[in-house]
């Protein structure tokens, strides 16, 4: 569905409308549970929701729809994504797109429905992890989602739209005129067999080489949002709601004549090459809602610059005032 529509409201509704407009299968199978129930409620009001009986079933049906050459989404939160990891792995091997929307809530276990970014290391694990998109504000959700769809379909590789439950509950406004180029894959093409079985090791090796080549191309698509990085000496790295807060902190630090800047990975995996971004940096501050997952990730790109972590967890969100004080106190 295309056509211009500006929508004001909660992120869950904006995301729901974006899904309705992007799906071409006519049905989204889902397993409703907090905090993703609001997305399903929106989709149900539009008449395209069908209940799945488990997250595994939802993931398998999503994989089936994609295998048949149509577009749908699977929506999870918290540990629910673990039940989709198998389908993500199969989609990687089948070379079909597989579109997940994952809401980060406080884990391990059930935890609570409040925001957390504790899934990063699981999502980006493996040789060919899914492409991970992370919006940092409500307004960019539909646009980034359509970009994710385009990349996933172009490369026939799974992708995850990863946002925390704080962002899901925020309000904003967004244009929902979403255009994704036509693409075909799976059984809609001339392909007769979709399989991930390669019993001959040389065949499997060849297969993996092909995936490796493709993944190197996907790496070139990686991008980050750079904010006031031209002369930044104190660099904040953050994604999701943390980037939203960090950006405001950077604004205030600049007013105090502190040369602060921010790197916000729009695509969290594969990560864009950040090496060149830290040339003028005196200190790097990683702001996140997990126990150092982003810190460990970014550390691989940093040499000779002091890194500090400012994090919150358990459902708490980093505080802007606290972050400003922390940066000022460590200069």
């Amino acid at each position, binding site marked *: 569905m295309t056509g211009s529509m500006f929508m004001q409201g909660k992120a869950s509704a904006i995301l729901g409308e974006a899904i309705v407009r992007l799906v071409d299968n006519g049905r989204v*199978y889902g397993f409703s549970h907090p905090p993703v129930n609001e997305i399903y409620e929106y989709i149900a009001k539009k008449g395209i929701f069908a209940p799945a009986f488990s997250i595994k079933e939802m993931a398998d049906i999503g994989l089936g729809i994609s295998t048949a050459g149509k577009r749908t989404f699977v929506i999870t939160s918290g540990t629910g994504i673990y039940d989709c990891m198998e389908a993500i792995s199969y989609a990687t091997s089948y070379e079909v797109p597989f579109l997940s929307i994952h809401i980060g809530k406080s884990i391990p276990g059930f935890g609570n429905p409040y925001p957390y970014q504790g899934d990063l290391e699981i999502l980006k694990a493996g040789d060919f992890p899914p492409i991970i998109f992370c919006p940092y504000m409500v307004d960019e959700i539909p646009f980034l989602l359509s970009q994710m769809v385009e990349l996933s379909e172009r490369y026939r590789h799974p992708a995850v739209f990863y946002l925390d439950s704080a962002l899901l509950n925020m309000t904003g406004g967004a244009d929902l005129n979403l255009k994704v180029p036509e693409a075909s894959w799976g059984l809609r093409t001339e392909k007769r*067999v979709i399989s991930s079985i390669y019993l001959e090791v040389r065949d499997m090796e060849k297969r993996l080489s092909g995936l490796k080549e493709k993944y190197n191309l996907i790496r070139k698509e990686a991008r980050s949002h750079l904010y006031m990085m031209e002369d930044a000496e104190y660099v904040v790295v953050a994604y999701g709601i943390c980037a939203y807060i960090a950006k405001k902190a950077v604004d205030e630090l600049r007013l105090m004549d502190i040369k602060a800047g921010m790197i916000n990975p729009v695509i969290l995996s594969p990560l864009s090459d950040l090496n060149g971004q830290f040339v003028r940096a005196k200190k790097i501050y990683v702001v996140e809602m997990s126990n150092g997952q982003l810190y460990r990730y970014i550390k691989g790109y940093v040499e000779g610059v002091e890194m500090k972590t400012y994090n919150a967890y358990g459902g708490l969100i980093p505080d802007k005032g606290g972050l400003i004080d922390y940066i000022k106190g460590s200069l």
Partner: protein
Amino acid sequence: MDEKRKIEKVYGFPEILTEKKAHFCPGCSHGIMTKVISEAIGEMGLEDSSIGVYGAGCAAIMYDYINIKGVAAPPGGAVGIATGIKSAGKGSLVFAYQGEGDLFYGLSSLIGAGVRGEGITIICENNLNMGISGGAMSPATPVGVMTTTSPQGRHIASHGAPVSIAEILKDIKGIKYIARCSTHSPGAVRKTKSIIKKAFELQLYGEGTAFIEVLGMCPTNMHLTPVEAALKIREVYGELQTGEIKHP
């Protein structure tokens, strides 16, 4: 007066059955089912519109033998994948082919598809063990039968009683057709084929979900000769309700 001899082909190699050498063990019923499904699709003229989704297990690469579009599903995922494919293309004939161990792995998908009345055909080849695991106990392994994970034989106190799959599904309203058949004899195979054709027909007429349990032999893991394995299946088959258990 010259009488022209009329020659009519009454039996032959199914056109969609490939000539690739099958990897199945001697006496395995997956080989029989490969031929039965090929014949059913061929006789119904559905070669171009059929899609087979093969569950994880010994028959996962059945797409190598049946020349229709095919998908090798994740463990327990064949019904879910078949549901997705059918949802994406209503005009296709979509069937899932799984062993009973794999079917139980994805039981929520089977029940989900049944409750929603998804228009797919589910064929479960129940050979009383999990063959790809080297003959491990499956939910349907009969009491007393030795497997790699019940070396002293299945014992109710330790392993629970075997499950009758078809009966579990009887009360699910969206599953319109349930049948139990077998491959232990030529007559049983012919009956199985007619049941599969009926289930395919029902799918074409939009009659909800169809479930067919086919009892089959696994001589290798049963440690029996093919003939002994067939006799064993006949024995198990004789203790169960057979034929059409539920129909629209």
